[in-house]
């Protein structure tokens, strides 16, 4: 992280945010690729831990992006990954909001959403597999991840309890 080019980091995230239809989980594979694989600024395990920390914090899930920027280069890094997020939100949102009020029945909006939803799901699946490979070293880790899935689908529990259970499982040495 001695020669991190903040301008390049800013531009990379700016480009990513313009294709982040479906939310911040869809760009996770590309952030992992850029930060861990191409530039080797942190390990895959660190990446997953930072993602987890941001999930525990209050606020929108997008904060993992801020924390990755901060880990790379302090406040300037956090700004370089977070500020680009606001650009599509302010420009496109207001533009489309305006168009939507003028043409409320345009079906192009529906076509975009229906067309992109499966891609979003595929990208989120990629994110989940990348995180699982980063944190799980043997079958016990995968078992706990899959147990989490089963519990979320069957029980209406707050995810924070599951995360606390995971912390406990880690401390007693199950992972």
């Amino acid at each position, binding site marked *: 992280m001695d020669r991190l080019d903040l301008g390049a980091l800013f531009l990379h995230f700016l*480009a990513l945010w313009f*294709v*982040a*239809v479906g939310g911040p989980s*869809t760009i996770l*594979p*590309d952030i992992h690729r850029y930060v861990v694989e191409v530039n080797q600024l942190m390990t895959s395990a660190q990446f*997953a*831990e930072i*993602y987890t*920390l*941001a999930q*525990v914090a*209050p*606020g*929108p899930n*997008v904060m993992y992006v801020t*924390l990755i920027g*901060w*880990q790379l280069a302090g406040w300037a890094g*956090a700004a370089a990954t977070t500020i680009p*997020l*606001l650009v*599509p*939100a302010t420009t*496109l*949102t*207001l533009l*489309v909001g305006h168009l939507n009020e003028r043409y409320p029945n345009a079906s192009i909006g529906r*076509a975009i*959403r229906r*067309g*992109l*939803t*499966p*891609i*979003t*799901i*595929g*990208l*989120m*699946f*990629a994110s*989940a597999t*990348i995180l*699982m490979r980063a944190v*799980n070293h043997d079958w016990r880790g995968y078992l*706990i991840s*899959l147990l*989490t*899935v089963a519990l*979320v689908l069957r029980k209406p529990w*707050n*995810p924070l309890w599951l995360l606390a259970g*995971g*912390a*406990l499982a*880690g401390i007693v040495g*199950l*992972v």
Partner: protein
Amino acid sequence: MEQTQSQTPCVSRLALFLTFSRITLSGFGGVMFWARRGLVERQRWLTDKEFVDLLTLGQLLPGPNVLNLTVMVGYRFAGWTGAAASVAGFLGWPCLVVIGMGVLYQHYGALPPVQQALAGMSTVAAGLLLATVVKLALVLPRRWRPWLFGMLAFVGVGVMRWPLLGVMGALAPFAVAAAWKEQE
């Protein structure tokens, strides 16, 4: 004076800032629930239908959909400065909290018990994301085309590890065109 604008109440920038601060700081594990509760039930700035409409619009656009909703609500009630006040409340506090956690992580993240707890939590966090994917996939239409596009996106980005911009550029136009043709 006519009462035509009575549906849009006068909302101060301070009220926008405080409301979005409260929403975001309540939002452990997702803010959607608290956004509806704050905007529709507590403040009555939006009706349920308006909330869903704005959220749908936000989902269409890149970025976190609740952030897009925040911008739209702030702009609607107090223009550009209202949008800025809302975003400052919505993102400012979580930024500070998360960076505080980053400081702790850099100091104590390498201690064995912390490391073990984090590893266990990360395993669960990966499972939580996978569960979200399963929930979303369950409501996909049972036709081959959406599933094909989803698989291609997964393989391109998750298995081949190609850059997202290229994969989206190649897939998105075809996916939208196919959905458009289906509507006709």
